[in-house]
């Protein structure tokens, strides 16, 4: 057990990453989890594997802190919601509370119910304003477009990770997160991911 010296309240930071199967949600949670471990924190996470990965909604919970052991978070416990997809972000807002920072990627992935025409996908402005009615702590980003600037749309998750690292109060240093990302991606995609990470980081710091 890694006991840390007692300085008042134990440190704890909870991140909920939401998105769609195949978007790299799992990789993002690994990147942040590894960075947290390298920084000497305890980490407890839970992931969605199996059937939901076939284009369904996915959620990764990442709990960092001195005393964390539970892989699941309590209702509203999230300090940050990292929304890889706008409709999924709206769907999962209740994971956060009034101080939760929400980062929402604005590039949608249409569910099969929408492409088949049996349901409607809401407009971007409509989604943003519906969230703004319940919290003011939302930052939006066009992660997929930024990733395309960096070289490839698949690096959208690196953009999101960079954006997360830029948030005020985020407990992990930028370099630790960036290093952890570059450590996990294959050699030949390192440059792309580094670029995408920086674009995400800079976008949030604008």
């Amino acid at each position, binding site marked *: 057990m890694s006991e840390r010296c007692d300085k008042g309240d134990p440190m704890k930071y909870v991140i909920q990453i939401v998105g769609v199967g195949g978007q790299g949600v799992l990789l993002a*949670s690994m990147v942040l989890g590894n960075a947290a471990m390298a920084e000497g924190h305890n980490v407890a996470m839970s992931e969605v*594997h199996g059937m939901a990965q076939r284009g369904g*909604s996915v959620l990764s919970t990442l709990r960092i802190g001195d005393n964390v052991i539970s892989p*699941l978070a*309590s209702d*509203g*416990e999230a300090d940050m919601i990292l929304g890889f997809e706008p409709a999924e972000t*709206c769907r999962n807002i209740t994971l*956060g509370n009034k101080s939760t920072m929400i980062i929402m990627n604005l590039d949608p992935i249409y*569910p099969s119910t929408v492409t088949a025409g049996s349901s409607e996908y809401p407009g971007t402005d409509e989604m943003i304003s519906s969230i703004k009615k319940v919290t003011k702590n939302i930052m939006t980003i066009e992660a997929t477009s930024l990733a395309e600037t960096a070289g490839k749309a698949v690096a959208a998750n690196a953009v999101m990770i960079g954006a997360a690292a830029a948030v005020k109060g985020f407990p992990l240093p930028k370099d630790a997160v960036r290093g952890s990302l570059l450590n996990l991606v294959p050699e030949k995609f390192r440059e792309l991911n580094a670029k995408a990470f920086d674009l995400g980081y800079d976008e949030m710091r604008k």
Partner: protein
Amino acid sequence: MSANDKKKELLLGNDAITRGIIEAGVGFASTYPGTPSSEIGNNLEKIAEKNGMFFEFSSNEKIAMESASAAAMSGVRSFVFMKHVGMNVAADPMLTLAYGGVRGGMVILTADDPSAHSSQNEQDNRIYAKLALLPMLEPSTPAEAKEMVKESYDISEELTLPVLFRTTTRVNHARGIVEEGDVKDVPKKSHFTRDIKRFVNIPANARTNRIRLLELNKKAAELSEASRFNFTEGKGSTGVITSGVSYTYVKEWMKNVSILKLGFTNPLPEKKIAEFMKDKEKIIVVEELEPFLEDQVLRIAKQSNLSVKIHGKRTDDLPMAFEYSPGVISALRHLADVADDNVPLARPDIALPPRPPTLCAGCPHRGIFHAVRKAVGRKEVIYSSDIGCYSLGAQPPFMMADMILCMGGGIGAAGGFSEATDQKVIAFSGDSTFFHSGITPLVSALFNGHKFTAIILDNRTTAMTGHQPHPGTGREFGGRRTEEIKIEDVVRGIGVKFVETVDPYDVKATIDVMTRAIEYDGLSVVIVKRACPLELKRKKILEPRVCEVDQDLCVKCSTCILSIACPALMKKDGIVSIDKEQCMGCMMCGRVCPKDAIKVIP
């Protein structure tokens, strides 16, 4: 414990378990893939050989259990793992294996799935430990899982009994920091020494072995009393008895309580439990699914003349159904101090489209479902389906599952439907499912003269659980290369007269074959053969191809979307288009388009 140079890693529960069996020196492992246990097999496929372990994907869980039993009877440490429902298949050998027991340590992992995230039910396999009279351990976290799996081998060898190792999704798919340990050097091969009394359970020996098993359970109870995995922590007049992942919720969210955390859960440490309850004002038992601990705690309290009030499922303080979460603990506020919750944000006032899991773009199942729908027309049909990606065919627009029970159940039940009704019956089975338990029902159907159509969806992999090989694909591992077993040969070999193989990407041909198969007066089998594009992508042998809609030709009839329902097809503002990121270029949509408006991009 102080070894600071030990490598620490952030491991998935299943990775920690894999690491545990490597450190325990396991020489033989077997499985049939099933979520939430599958990643263990995917790990072993890569690392078994270099750790001197033989690892097999058995055709089903029963065979996995039997082969691992044989290894352990021979003195080699063995490991068999499966999802909870797999244990139903493996229960037959397991219950008698307990009688003669093992020589080398043997651990049987059951990965339960409370809330049925990826399963057809949420059965609680702890009850198997009672039924089989086997010692059982239940970890709460990935780190504990690794430690426990290692110690399970010592327990197994001390008792000469296999140990049941029960995990749940939130342990298998949790991630936590795990420290690497030393690898135990135990022989990976042994010599089987005959012991007829123990291993040949004819009635006379079975009776002796039954007594042996009961005696060993007394010894197991002593081990449980002394086990470091059954411990108390915290202080308070309210006592909480808990096991598995529920312990992590109790530990983080309940305040001022005394906790008895149980890891060795069969047999229970009865003395420890009675001792724990003695000075408490009330007891709360927190466990997922069945009141497995609770009912025994009630009995132990009664036998120990303790009148302490015991709260749990029997008092309706806790739910029986679905997995627990910190929220479930918060609902115990009337009984104990619970950490303050955050107030969750209100749900945004916006209608969101549902996002159910769906068959992938380019999935060959889309082709066969469309073809069946065309071939069936207005006939009344019962779709007797099975377990796999194709279970997703139950959703619109295909709606092609009227019943799903279990692996192989589609073909098995089809015989019953065909005799009990006058409806036409179509059974679905996957390729891996066919080898798991689809062959025997086909034999039975032929033998009993049933008339129905069985469709075997041969996508060349065990797709749903993460693309494991199966007998129909052959296997390459540890310097061996086994040949694929052809489904068509098997079906013909059984004696089925109507057997046809067709490529579902060729939509017209598939409709034609299906029409004849349905009309056939007898047992007809159609093998639909086309590799899962995800598998090809994974193996890096997918030829990248993308299709597009020629807007000059398209008449916006939506036939492609309605027939194939591929997620890469989109209709927005009246324009039908294809998402290049998702499209696999299978051309199924193109083949149903009445205007030939869809083309492969050159």
